[in-house]
């Protein structure tokens, strides 16, 4: 019994791990889907882009706007919309006032995922976004003469990156200086 225990332990632990993994996965998936479903039905005017995509894939000839309109009216039921198209009734043209509630990705290929998350900051000005506050505070006259080089390309990856960043910073700072001068002139 005692020498059996370790050999029993590892496989059973593994099994437990695998089983609990799948259970959790199922649990969260179910959770997510039911939550999503109720959200869609509850608000009524939210069309799940995935559903629109689904239908657009089945019937590429359809206009996404029409699909969204139909989905919105039947409460987000893919089956109903599919049925409607298959029976040959076709989809109604939405009224011109209809605004697609979601921005649809143009094709069935989702956008590339980003490896490097940008510093997310909405409603942030460009100076703080690009950490230019130090440069922005410095006297405007001193950095005036340098002209951003018009054409710049380097064989070196880091160098290129640096040039691009410099062009960006220059552009922002120049605009800022100009704006400051203008507002001073107005006062």
């Amino acid at each position, binding site marked *: 019994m005692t020498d059996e225990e370790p050999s029993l332990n590892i496989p059973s632990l593994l099994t437990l791990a695998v089983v609990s993994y799948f259970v959790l996965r199922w649990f969260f998936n179910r959770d997510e889907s039911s939550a999503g479903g109720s959200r869609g039905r509850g608000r009524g005017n939210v069309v799940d882009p995935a559903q629109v995509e689904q239908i657009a894939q089945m019937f590429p000839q359809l206009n996404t706007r029409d699909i969204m309109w139909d989905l919105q009216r039947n409460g987000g039921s893919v089956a109903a919309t599919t049925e409607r198209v298959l029976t040959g009734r076709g989809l109604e043209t939405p009224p011109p006032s209809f605004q697609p509630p979601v921005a649809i*990705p143009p094709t069935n290929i*989702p956008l*590339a995922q980003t490896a490097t998350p940008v510093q997310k900051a909405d409603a942030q000005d*460009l100076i703080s976004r690009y950490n230019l506050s130090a440069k922005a505070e410095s006297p405007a006259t001193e950095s005036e003469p340098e002209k951003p080089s018009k054409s710049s390309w380097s064989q070196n990856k880091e160098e290129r990156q640096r040039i691009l960043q410099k062009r960006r910073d220059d552009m*922002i700072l120049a605009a800022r200086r100009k704006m400051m001068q203008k507002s001073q002139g107005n006062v």
Partner: protein
Amino acid sequence: MASSVAQKRLFHEYKNLSTNPPEGITAGPISEDDMFHWEALIQGPEETPFEGGVFAAELKFPRDYPLSPPTMKFIGGGVWHPNVYPNGTVCISILHPPGDDPNHYEHASERWSPIQSVEKILISVMSMLAEPNDESPANVEAAKMWRERRPEYEQKVRDEVKKGLGL
């Protein structure tokens, strides 16, 4: 040949925009490790309330670029404009593939095609800033203000521009 068509093409565009940049436009990948995620700066067109401003936007490219268009979203300070969603997403015909037409007014010829480019998109966005398309607004509030209370709209845009530059 090792990298995908999209990466190579984006690299070409990057080089082109760096060596021969159009007036008032700076654009390039945030990091060359991910060519599918760019950041662009565009200058506000002259003789518009956007004049003097600089606007940052991120461009995200699909894997099958240039078959499908990228998406463009203004970041940082919001852009108060009838054709820009409140979250910054730009709604302009060149960013829509000819297949779907969320806005009925668009001619197929104005929309995305694989021969369009980042440069053309950014130039289109610049002219969009100058001349909003009123027919199918993305920002209804802004459109209303633009239509009915133009001075107020222009003042708000000017304030946003200043705020964007940290002034």
